[in-house]
């Protein structure tokens, strides 16, 4: 019986590990196909491109992961990226002396304010996260238009030092990718080592039990949204640096890349399950696909279709696997019952 039990436990554990392994395999397959099909795919320059485009998504996806872990969702991140990108770049265009860190700080501050607003709507206002952030998706986007008045921040308006920053490299890795990696490592560490990080998992896993265990659920959810907002703000800064310019529609639809990275990466939409590593793999997969499609001159809308399809598949597979495990447990009890009955009969 012990052996059966242990093996079952291993199966259950493995099924969840498998989730990240599956996405890693998909990634390798995609890379292999593109490497064969497009000769410029496996070049240093191209991987630099990929790393920069994955960087912005990843930074924001770390925050989204935390929100989804608590059984919520943040649809407004694309608009927060736009708003913080515009405000920070706009400020920089009129104050050329502003240090890079100052620009980033402005962007993050804008993001934190937005995230706090989302969090308050969900916790204090008790608006379901999907509706709350759908509303703020449009409200924040409207604010970008209001602030910009239809104008753009163009590259020539930005100081050379800012434009140079995006091109800088550390040990051959683009600065933006370094920032994203730092955010991801930090985020993963927080989720692993801090009490609030573990609380996210507990809340998403069983909100009622979390409350009974004395976990301050509302404060933690607020924190998750605030972090998500702050990282979306940081994403805005990275966005402005990457494209050296911002328009009122910058970052529109960006929430899709982020959410699909998170969901494809195995962060369960029911909360409680998922890792930053998974989200990072998801983000990388999307960036690789987008890049490969571009190189193969496949229209980019195929990427959108792929993302949607991948989300539906991920959700379906996750739900069915969970049910399968539950069923396996019932089967085990059934075996035990039969054994017990036999033991009773022979006694």
């Amino acid at each position: 019986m012990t052996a059966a039990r242990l093996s079952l436990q291993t199966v259950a554990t493995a099924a969840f590990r498998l989730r990240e392994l599956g996405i890693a395999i998909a990634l390798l397959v995609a890379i292999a196909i593109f490497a064969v099909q497009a000769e410029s795919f496996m070049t240093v320059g191209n991987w630099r491109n990929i790393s920069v485009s994955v960087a912005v998504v990843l930074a924001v996806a770390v925050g989204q992961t935390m929100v989804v872990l608590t059984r919520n969702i943040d649809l407004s991140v694309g608009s927060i990226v736009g708003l913080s990108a515009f405000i920070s770049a706009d400020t920089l265009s009129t104050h050329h002396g502003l240090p890079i860190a100052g620009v980033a700080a402005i962007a993050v501050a804008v993001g934190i304010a937005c995230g706090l607003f989302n969090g308050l709507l969900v916790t204090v206002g008790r608006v379901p996260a999907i509706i709350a952030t759908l509303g703020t998706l449009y409200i924040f986007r409207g604010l970008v238009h209001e602030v910009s008045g239809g104008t753009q921040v163009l590259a020539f308006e930005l100081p050379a030092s800012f434009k140079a920053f995006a091109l800088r490299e550390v040990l051959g890795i683009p600065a933006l990718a370094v920032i994203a990696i730092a955010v991801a490592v930090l985020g993963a560490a927080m989720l692993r080592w801090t009490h609030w990080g573990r609380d996210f998992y507990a809340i998403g896993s069983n909100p009622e039990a979390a409350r009974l265990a004395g976990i301050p659920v509302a404060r933690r959810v607020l924190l998750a949204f605030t972090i998500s907002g702050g990282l979306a703000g940081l994403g805005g800064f990275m966005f402005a640096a990457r494209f050296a310019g911002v328009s009122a529609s910058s970052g529109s639809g960006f929430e899709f890349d982020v959410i699909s990275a998170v969901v494809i990466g195995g962060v369960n939409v029911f909360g409680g399950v998922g890792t930053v590593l998974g989200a990072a793999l998801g983000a990388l997969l999307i960036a690789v696909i987008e890049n490969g499609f571009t190189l193969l001159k496949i229209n980019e809308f195929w990427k959108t279709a792929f993302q949607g399809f991948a989300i539906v598949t991920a959700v379906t597979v996750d739900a069915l696997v969970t049910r399968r495990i539950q069923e396996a447990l019932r089967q085990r009890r059934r075996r035990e019952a039969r054994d017990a009955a036999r033991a009773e009969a022979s006694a």
Partner: protein
Amino acid sequence: MSVPTGPPLVELRGVSRSFGGVQALSDVDLRLRAGEVHALVGENGAGKSTLIKVLTGVHQPDAGQIVFEGEEQRIGSVHAAQALGIAAMYQEPSVFLDLSVAENIYAGRRPRGPLGSVDWSRMNAEAGAVLAELGVDFGPEAPVRGLGVADRQLLEIAKALSVNARVLIMDEPTSALSPREVENLFQVTRRLRDQGVAIAFVSHRLEEVNEIADVVTVLRDGRHVATQRASDLTQAEIVRLMVGRSLDTLFPKEETEIRDVALELRGFTRHGVFSGVSFAVRRGEILGLAGLVGAGRTEVARSLFGIDPYDSGDVLLGGKPFRPRSPRAALRRGLAYLPEDRLGQGLVQLMSVAANCSMAVLPRLTRGGVLRPWLERRLARRFIEQLRIRAYSPGQVVQTLSGGNQQKVVLAKWLAAEPGVLILDEPTRGVDVGAKADVHLTISQLAARGLAIVLISSELPEVLGMSDRIVVLREGRVTAELDRSAATSERVMEAALGAATAA
């Protein structure tokens, strides 16, 4: 071997609590002493759960005092109870499926490392120690989703152990455990007792009560009946104390003509839930399905009605084979089930009396899919009159009715479907006395009209008073089938408890 005289650690004095007119506890005294295992026994609904919930701060008493170490305390919340060192574990564990065992044990109070971070090694080590003490075969790092319910139960025990509780309440902790696990648990329980923990132990298994308890308190109908040394009581005496009550309520049981078999089960089995259940109900007959909570009565009914799957066995409805698939299919064959959970499964609270009454027969009241509200109102008026539902109009929203009247609306819904077989699951739970009599009268009249009725009830007098025949389930198996004339409280309880009363 005298009742210990030391001062109690926790004392309840004259505690009463009622829920919407139903007196769950009245004037109950209880003393839990350090270093003592105190068993609480009683029938379903005797007040054990409520008593525990008062101790753990889930419910507040309407009257009476709680005294902890000689000082009167108000236990206003679960946290207040925990702060006093009162820990509880329930039969249905509420766990974090996605977290590890150690995290489940320490949720909300994980050990802190030097930087205030989660001290995983200490947490796993401490959890491991607790688990080792329990003698379980899973480690602190195992994911809880991979554990069976029995293991989750042990996890709850580990949680209670890890807080160094001074009072430990165990609410049917053994119901899902194997004998080896029970033995483990008892060893730990004794060790805790010897360390000076006061333990309240609730169980339906009387042999376990005899084995582990130092003191036994018997509750009946929300009242304290007796507190005695366990060694002074035999199982038979405990059963007598539990049921010791005359059938003072008059049940309006009509003599009916019992006709052909309407429903028959042969070897009905759902693995791990119930097995080999066989019985038959005839038209005009009321068959009582007795047993303790968790004996599998509701589960049999659910599978029969097509809500849960079943694994094997045959069902005959009116002599013809029937394969339960869905409630819809069951209703079509004239089988109706009035569920246990009135709020969750029986009623749409926000809809009117008429809409609820007509819900199961709506297609019959429509033409081409178009509602004909006047027919619904007529139907509702008929049942309002027939069942004496106290609603001012068929349009009244069900939420605003009293519990008894809500129950009558659910009953009306199923009667409207004019079933041949009606399964009633706890039809009078939470219903006030007057409405109860109405429901009983209706059930009796229905049987007289030729309906076959399966009555699931945890109230022994109700089963005894209403049934023509009683089938007793214990742990998913039929343990007795008694005729009305042969059925007594004691015999039903014996079959339900598996008690060795002959001894």
